[in-house]
């Protein structure tokens, strides 16, 4: 039992104890940009998951052949190629969401989580472990994105996944959506609140 737990460590650790967003404070930029609604946040999570898991595996397979002097460039080429593919697939299959996410898919290339995991993990570990690590970190990132998007969409637009959840009767009584929640600063404050609760729990 303990053996399995140990082997799955690369997958489980980033979910909470070593979360890339709220513990390592990486990838905050995109956490602000794509979390006004749930749907783009989930699509962004899936995109990052695909890019991070695949690039981790590819770099890990190539790790013994990569010339040390150009290793960052090799990593960038692999990540950039995967991001372009994800962007093209989105444009072909989910045009509406790809319009909403616009430049942020392209900006996955510069997401510190991805370069960080390639440098710190994939270069020194076997492809299977690198895959677990990639999935784990992307999910850790995605959990935070979804939590933030949940609160921002609920309080900012009164909807979840585009469906109205706050009853019309409440609006008739004078309830108003909080327009501030739509703006990026509230994403920062929401992330800060999550970090606060997380730290309280860790102590």
């Amino acid at each position: 039992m303990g053996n399995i737990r140990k082997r799955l460590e690369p997958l489980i650790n980033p979910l909470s104890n070593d979360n890339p967003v709220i513990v390592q404070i990486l990838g905050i930029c995109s956490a602000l940009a794509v979390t006004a609604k749930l749907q783009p946040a989930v699509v962004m999570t899936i995109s990052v998951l695909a890019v991070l898991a695949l690039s981790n595996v590819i770099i890990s397979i190539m790790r013994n052949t990569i010339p040390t002097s150009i290793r960052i460039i090799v990593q960038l080429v692999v990540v950039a190629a995967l991001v372009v593919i994800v962007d093209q697939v989105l444009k072909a299959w989910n045009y509406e969401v790809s319009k909403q996410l616009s430049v942020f898919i392209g900006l996955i290339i510069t997401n510190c989580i991805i370069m960080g995991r390639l440098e710190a993990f994939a270069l020194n570990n076997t492809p299977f472990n690198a895959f677990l690590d990639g999935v784990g970190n992307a999910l850790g990132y995605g959990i935070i994105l979804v939590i933030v998007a949940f609160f921002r969409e609920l309080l900012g637009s009164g909807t979840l996944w585009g469906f109205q959840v706050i009853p019309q009767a409440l609006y008739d009584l004078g309830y108003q959506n909080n327009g501030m929640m739509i703006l990026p600063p509230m994403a920062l404050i929401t992330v800060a609140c999550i970090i606060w609760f997380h730290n309280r729990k860790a102590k």
Partner: protein
Amino acid sequence: MKINKENNVYTVVYASVLVIVVGFALALVYQALRPAQLENIANDTKKQILASALIYPTGNESIGDLYEKHIKNSYCVDSKGNKIDGETALDVNVASEVKKPADERVLPVFVCTTEKGEKYIVPVYGAGLWGPIWGYVSMDDNGKDIYGAYFGHQGETPGLGAEIEKPQFSSQFEGKSIFGSNGDFESVLVVKKGQEPAGKAYVNAVSGGTITSQGVQKMLYNSLEPYTEFFKNLAKESNKE
């Protein structure tokens, strides 16, 4: 065999092979997905055209079907209002047409059948603050009043200039006349809230989006003016009936 990873030749060959492999893979993906992407872009255009005539997709009807149902006819005219043969309205590149002098332009017209009669939809194109802005304007069959409008943008500031794509802004155009009381083309002005230009059709600009709003005003004037003769012909025809 132990590879010498520090060797210059090895590094150069490695980089070249990698780039060629990646380039090949990307070209393949691009080729494979191109048809689906083009269809999405075409559907998006159709959706924008319909939105200007206040028709929005509901539920399970595909955009293509909705478009076929409402847009019964489309053609191109020149600045004298005569039809041009051999041009498809959907294929006209509006972005390059608006740069030509008015009398050389190919002007697309989409005839839309709605519950409130025939509407004539024309594309508009111009510049905002950061990049291009565009839209579609649907006219009543009297050739004078705007029935509805849709505006899009590429990268205007969210919350400021980008508000032009919201219905709150575009619905202001409904019912405005683009011809003055003496029958001359005047377009619609986009002015700061509170200003009321006497005797002219106007809408309120987006607050904080001054340059984008001025861009909309310029775009409307520049793109609609060449249609003057066409709209006047429409007016004559609707008077006859």
